[in-house]
């Protein structure tokens, strides 16, 4: 299908009343969850996952995609109004955004943030729509070694962004891979690490792991944390889209942020938080007003805002073209697809182009609806902040456990989910990042499957991953990531040797 015609068809499907309504509800849920400090958009997606059991694959993706797009921006509302980031990716918005709120009022800061976010998100959605089909065509030429190399790249890139947390990320990642290997092996049919428990023969469902770690673990953490001091927005929140003249004045920072975010989104393991931090860091280096950063410079707010939403569309490119989720949000979308029997990968582009283009179109539309919905949520933000978090926590726990039960209608999944919730709570408590564990559970079995079939097809020749051009390039990139991750440690070692 021609990309432009496909996109037009996708817009038509996405605008059907039910599809549109589900997407708008998703954006609304995302913006509200993102705006509430302590509930990230990933938490919201994990909690919402059980509600997609009864939807079609397309509706599920529209709903979760809406939460993703809305949630990434939603965190900025609390950053700009009360100087508390709703999500980690909204932290850079506090640095220059909150001083703008204090100096010029919230309308100015919120308007810059929503306009920059919408521009970044729209560009990223269009990239997803028009760049991913050729990439999928290219991926059709992949054989097992290339898929293994791509999965390996996804696994190691988790480490590349683990700044200062490398060892703990490794422990988390290997724990996830080991947990992913529980059950019957893909080639010989031997049960491994099942301890004689029959339900473990089918392995641990990664949906249950995600709900446990991201939803229950977070709620336990919120319940155990000491009550934060009461806070309420001092300002009446209003926002609007910037006028063309105002946007033109920020064109450099918005363009740089959008470009950086779009590239970072494609990299497996990176995400909105990395995109926002890198965009702010680069803007601080190149902007003519760099010395004033931190005091309320509009460019210092526009760049990270554009960047974090620019990661949303391109983050789906590795998921939809290769079937490899590069982030926790993409992993939840993978879960929604696999729950409905849809296997993402290059073949999806030939088998279900209508559904794919509707997803692409909905991402584009979601960025437009995000503007309207964010205006409403920002106005009601003071009321939102008065809601007792304990009540929200209680219902999130019930929704999560019912969601885990719904995976296989088996109470054992509820117990497994609780176990992972407790594990997630203690991992957070002791500084172990949880995202590498979840990606290990998802990517580990894929990597093992591709590795074993590569070995079976290529006479157990381990060099096959390096001698085939495409897999060789991917493996070189993977080792590049490892070196990048080890750079600070290697630098310290070299300094010591010089002394």
């Amino acid at each position, binding site marked *: 299908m021609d990309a432009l015609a496909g996109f037009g068809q996708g817009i038509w499907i996405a605008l059907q009343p039910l599809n549109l309504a589900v997407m708008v509800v998703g954006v609304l849920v995302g913006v509200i969850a993102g705006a509430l400090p302590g509930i990230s958009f990933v938490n919201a997606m994990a909690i919402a996952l059980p509600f997609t059991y009864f939807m079609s694959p397309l509706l599920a993706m529209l709903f979760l995609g809406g939460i993703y797009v809305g949630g990434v921006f939603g965190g900025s509302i609390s950053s700009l109004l009360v100087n508390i980031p709703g999500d980690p990716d909204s932290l850079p918005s506090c640095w220059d955004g909150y001083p703008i709120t204090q100096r010029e009022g919230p309308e100015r800061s919120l308007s810059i943030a929503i306009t920059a976010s919408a521009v970044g998100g729209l560009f990223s959605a269009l990239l997803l729509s028009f760049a991913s089909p050729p990439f999928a065509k290219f991926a059709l030429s992949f054989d097992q070694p290339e898929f293994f190399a791509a999965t390996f790249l996804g696994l190691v890139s988790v480490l590349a962004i683990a700044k200062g947390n490398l060892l703990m990320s490794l422990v988390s990642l290997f*724990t996830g891979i*080991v947990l992913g290997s529980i059950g019957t092996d893909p080639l010989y049919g*031997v049960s491994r690490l099942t301890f004689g428990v029959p339900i473990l023969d089918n392995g641990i469902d990664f949906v249950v792991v995600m709900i446990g770690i991201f939803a229950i673990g977070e709620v336990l953490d919120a319940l155990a*944390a000491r009550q934060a001091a009461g806070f309420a927005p001092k300002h009446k929140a209003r926002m609007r889209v910037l006028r063309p003249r105002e946007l033109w004045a920020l064109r450099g920072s918005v363009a740089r942020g959008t470009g950086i975010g779009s590239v970072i989104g494609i990299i497996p393991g990176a995400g909105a938080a990395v995109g926002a931090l890198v965009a702010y860091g680069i803007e601080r280096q190149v902007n003519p007003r760099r010395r004033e950063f931190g005091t309320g410079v509009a460019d210092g707010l526009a760049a990270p805002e554009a960047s974090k939403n620019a990661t949303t569309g391109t983050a789906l490119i590795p998921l939809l073209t290769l079937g490899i989720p590069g982030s926790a949000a993409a992993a939840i979308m993978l879960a929604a697809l696999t729950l409905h029997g849809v296997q993402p990968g290059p073949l999806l582009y030939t088998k279900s182009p209508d559904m794919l283009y509707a997803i692409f179109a909905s991402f584009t539309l979601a960025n437009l609806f995000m503007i309207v919905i964010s205006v409403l949520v920002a106005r009601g933000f003071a009321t939102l902040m008065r809601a007792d*978090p304990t009540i929200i926590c209680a219902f999130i726990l019930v929704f999560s456990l019912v969601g885990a039960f719904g995976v296989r209608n088996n*109470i054992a999944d509820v117990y497994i989910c609780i176990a992972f919730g407790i594990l997630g709570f203690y991992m957070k408590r002791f500084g172990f990042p949880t995202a590498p564990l979840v990606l290990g559970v998802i990517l*580990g079995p894929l990597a093992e499957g591709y590795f074993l079939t590569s070995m079976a097809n290529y006479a*157990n020749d381990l060099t096959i991953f390096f001698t085939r051009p495409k897999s060789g390039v991917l493996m070189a990139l993977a080792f590049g990531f490892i070196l990048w991750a080890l750079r600070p440690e290697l630098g310290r070692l070299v300094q010591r040797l010089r002394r």
Partner: protein
Amino acid sequence: MPAHAPGRQFRVTRLLRLAGPLAVAVAAGVFSAFYLAPGVDTASMTRGPLGPVVWPKAMLACLLASAAVVFLVRLWQFAKGVPDDVDGGKGEYHEGRGAAAIAVLLAYAWALPIAGFAFSTAVFIAAVLLLGGVRRPRTVVLTAGIGTVALLYVFVKVSLMPLDRGKGAFETATITLYRLLGIY
């Protein structure tokens, strides 16, 4: 005691941070040696250098190595008195409430098949509210009651999920409640 002197909770947290990676390393070693595929002759079914337990064994070895390094680094920090990012001393966590939340969660999971979803959920929501500091009886009762009814409508009536009705008297009571609500 000086304002910055490490308290008992701080020391316990640091010891737990040492014990955690050590426990992971030991568990990885034990699982690799004894529990990979007990009773299965994996060597005889292996073709070439690879068999059914090669992948998990390699990953367990990597886990053991990385956890051991974390343990050694923390042990070195502990011995040298190097400050780390232990948060126990800062008082950001209420240890008792964390443990109580886990206990309530486990009790809910235990009660689900016995008391059924409806009754155990109502009690669970009330328990979480009390744990979180909500003290007004009317708020607790109304939130737990109305919330449970709303959840029953969503999951039983709309989503047709086969949620547990409990055993014996609880099952009878759940069915009666479902009939009263018009969802059975």
